[in-house]
């Protein structure tokens, strides 16, 4: 086991995969300097042909990645801030996600697209989108959502090797988190959730909110409340079995998501449980999300609007007293 940060783990995954497979290459704005941290230094080892600085043309180079992937390459595309996803969205939705299907299996699109979701970065509404649920609604994509260094490395490696297009989201507050990462080559399967903490009384599904969820569970433990924290890790395909099994055990669900509430990943989890876990439910489901308001610039304001430990604790108490 080695200790490293979330970003170091992603960089390790990427450089190991580039070493392993010459078809893997990297594209994006300023990837050589690595303004989005993961790609820093790669150009020294792999050269400028495989680490390509692009113009500000997100749609263009995302499309190039799809084209190159369709004939055998495995591009890792650094799209930086998730708020820029919209300019590249057509290429991800109408090309990357659909081409295998449209062409009756003649093409595969093994590309990875990375988006960072900014929170507590004080960059205002045009830099703070959390659009993972928008991509969940698009069939044909796989969506990974790692939260710890270990999962980041293992999931990125899997996504790069996977023959389907994958979109990775990470929250900017994860970057400096440190954690144990297994030595050597390891991968983590796409589609399996992690039970980050076992519990008996309430299931807390934490979408990009693992850390406040664990803190909340710890605080509630002191009151004798046992919270099971589930980190989905992959949003598509979602590990419905793990979630349903947990709710079958606890009978209660709180689901939190850093995204706005409406049509969020949290809504999807809630709908899933209302449909397939209803008979186990002993209390209303509670969503704890960012409200349906744009993210304001003013730091003291921004800090108040995300799901945090206190809001999660309150929600758990709520479903216990309901």
């Amino acid at each position: 086991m080695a200790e490293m940060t979330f970003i170091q783990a992603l960089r390790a995954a990427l450089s190991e995969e580039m070493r392993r497979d010459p078809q893997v290459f990297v594209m994006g704005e300023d990837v050589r300097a690595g303004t989005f941290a993961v790609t820093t230094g790669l150009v020294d080892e792999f050269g400028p042909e495989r680490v390509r600085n692009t113009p500000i043309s997100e749609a263009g180079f995302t499309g190039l990645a799809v084209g190159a992937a369709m004939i055998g390459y495995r591009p890792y595309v650094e799209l930086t801030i998730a708020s820029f996803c919209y300019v590249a969205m057509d290429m991800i939705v109408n090309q990357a996600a659909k081409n295998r299907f449209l062409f009756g299996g003649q093409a595969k699109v093994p590309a990875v697209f990375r988006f960072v979701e900014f929170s507590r970065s004080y960059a205002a509404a045009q830099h703070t989108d959390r659009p993972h649920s928008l991509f969940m609604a698009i069939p044909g994509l796989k969506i990974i959502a790692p939260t710890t260094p270990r999962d980041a490395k293992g999931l990125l490696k899997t996504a790069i090797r996977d023959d389907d297009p994958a979109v990775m989201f990470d929250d900017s507050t994860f970057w400096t988190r440190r954690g144990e990462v297994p030595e050597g080559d390891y991968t983590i399967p796409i589609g399996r959730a992690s039970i980050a903490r076992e519990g008996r009384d309430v299931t807390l599904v934490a979408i990009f909110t693992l850390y406040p969820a664990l803190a909340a569970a710890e605080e509630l433990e002191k009151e004798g409340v046992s919270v099971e924290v589930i980190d989905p890790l992959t949003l598509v395909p979602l590990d419905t079995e793990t979630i349903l099994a947990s709710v079958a055990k606890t009978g209660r669900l709180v689901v939190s998501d850093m995204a706005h509430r409406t049509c969020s990943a949290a809504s999807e989890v809630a709908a899933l449980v209302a449909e397939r876990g209803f008979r186990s439910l002993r209390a209303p489901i509670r969503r704890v999300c960012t409200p349906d308001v744009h993210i304001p610039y003013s730091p003291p304001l921004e800090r108040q609007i995300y799901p945090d430990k206190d809001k999660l604790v309150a929600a758990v108490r709520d479903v216990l007293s309901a």
Partner: protein
Amino acid sequence: MAVEVQAERATYVEMLRRMLAIRTFEQKAEELLNRGEILGSMHSSIGQEAVCVGGCMAVRPDDYMTGHHRSHGHPIAKGADLKRLMAELLGRVTGVCHGKGGSMHLADFSVGSLGEAAIVGSSLPIAAGAGLAIKLSGSGKVCLAFFGDGASNTGIFHEALNLASIWKLPVVFLCENNQYAITTSIKISSAVQQIAHRASAYAMPGQVVDGQDVLAVHAAVRAAADRARAGEGPTLVEAMTYRYGEHSTRLRLPLYRSAEEVEAWKQRDPIVLFRGWIVERGLATADELAHLEDAVKADVEAAVEFAHQSPYPDLDSLWDDMYADPSPWRERPIG
């Protein structure tokens, strides 16, 4: 010249054959649509056959090609099997895309046809991406990218051409300028009246050719492909052409082109022109050409026959091409 011409006789006849195949295929498809056998929308290449064939035959069978919404002609010109194309139009499981893509998404990777994109402009970066893959692999291939005049007003056109240029990708951008995007004339949609004029904004050569002259298109694309293979980067070739029919076969729109304009273009029909050229030079007799036409007709009939005999895909096949391993989805209810 005469010697060369004789030596390439077979090529010329093949060019004509493919142009005839496109026209006959399109006529048959229109007939099927009007009979209610084809239900979606469909965009015919009739009138534009010289661009399809001049372009596709100027590159090699294993080079790549991308199309767009008006792209029955492109895979045919690239050498695709008519049977599987027709089966696709008819939504059959034997279709080139197993009935999943239809008219706007014909693709036949076996002849380098990387597929069509129905979002206008969106196949341009795909073509450039194929160019990037070629460059990274050193395979020496090129990619030919068809697009329309209307597509040149999309942002993705700008991004794709700039990227192809700065990275000197082996791509030939071949604009089929039929002067209209649905009902909208290039006169009111584009600040410049020749798309090739935009090439200089990407520091690449731009050239306008007569799109009704298959040899002119062929020569320009061949030169551009040679340049691309030599590592000198992309070229923008603009072929002036015309579609005879409606934008889409099913549409019945208020008039936006004068009868004279349509007629004038029909006077320069690419098939008539090229057939004349062939006969004039003695490359084939009228008799041989009549045979050729019959053979093409028979091929198209056989394609329809093949399609008609093929089953529709069944519901379960939906998931087959969704993911490398679609099982998590397949298990879920349809409702």
